[in-house]
């Protein structure tokens, strides 16, 4: 195992162990220190999220041990859920553009994908894309605003655009996006909304309209 592979593995799972991990730790002090730092960071994360749970436990009256244990589990889960729900939601623009920026390779794709690959992404929501708007060169189901949404890249004659079908997100009118060198628009759709993001503002509204009209949202 080399340093790159080691750091990929421990970056995703700092608690990972095994013969190959331990062998690399012995060989490379810098990587061993890196893993230790990540483990320490996880402990900090755990403590940061547990603060409120601890406060609630302190004001809970004493009960039999088994009841206290059950209560602490319920409180822990409830606080975790409450923390989760109360986490600040980034703005629509940041979420959409952030997702596009995280996958720069998607916008750069040029080869049309197979019709079945497109169907695999759209069918779960009963959506279809009418032909004629351009070649679809990327299709995936991605996590945006806590929901799994279809993410397409369509190569129009004016250039590639990213299309996100946001069934969960209603907007009352067009929302303009411009961040990190990307521009786009979120349009109200028959089911939620649709985000169209490109690199160039010129012609974007026309492309957005074409893409919008090409989407069949189903029933």
């Amino acid at each position, binding site marked *: 195992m080399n340093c790159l592979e080691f750091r990929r593995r421990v*970056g*995703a799972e700092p608690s990972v162990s095994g013969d190959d991990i331990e062998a690399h730790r012995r060989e490379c002090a810098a990587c061993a220190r890196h893993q230790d730092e990540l483990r320490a*960071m*996880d402990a900090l994360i755990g403590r940061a999220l547990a603060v409120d749970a601890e406060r609630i436990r302190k004001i809970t009256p004493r009960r039999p041990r088994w009841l206290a244990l059950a209560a602490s589990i319920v409180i822990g889960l409830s606080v975790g859920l409450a923390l989760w729900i109360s986490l600040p939601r980034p703005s629509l623009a940041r979420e959409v553009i952030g*997702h596009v920026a*995280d996958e720069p390779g998607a916008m750069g794709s040029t080869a049309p994908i197979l019709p079945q690959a497109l169907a695999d992404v759209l069918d779960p929501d009963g959506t279809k894309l009418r032909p004629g708007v351009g070649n679809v060169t990327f299709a995936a189901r991605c996590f945006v605003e806590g929901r799994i949404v279809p993410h397409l890249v369509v190569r129009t004659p004016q250039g590639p655009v990213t299309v996100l079908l946001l069934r969960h997100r209603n907007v009352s009118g067009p929302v303009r996006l411009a961040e990190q060198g990307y521009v786009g628009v979120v349009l109200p759709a028959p089911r939620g909304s649709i985000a169209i993001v490109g690199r160039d503002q010129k012609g974007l509204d026309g492309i957005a309209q074409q893409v919008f009209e090409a989407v069949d949202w189903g029933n």
Partner: protein
Amino acid sequence: MREALFRLSDEYREPLVLQVMMGYTTQEIADQMGLQRGAVLTRLFRARARLRQELRLDAEPSP
């Protein structure tokens, strides 16, 4: 740390919280989020990389 955590986008924060706070395995997170395990590993890696970056930036004194 909490603020840095909250600045992460949901797609990175959710698997991290599930792993660190709830003790889910990467496969369980993948099942929960409807993702391939590889995508979960990528998100966890990126989430930690961003947190490390944020915390380092936070620690730097103001000019």
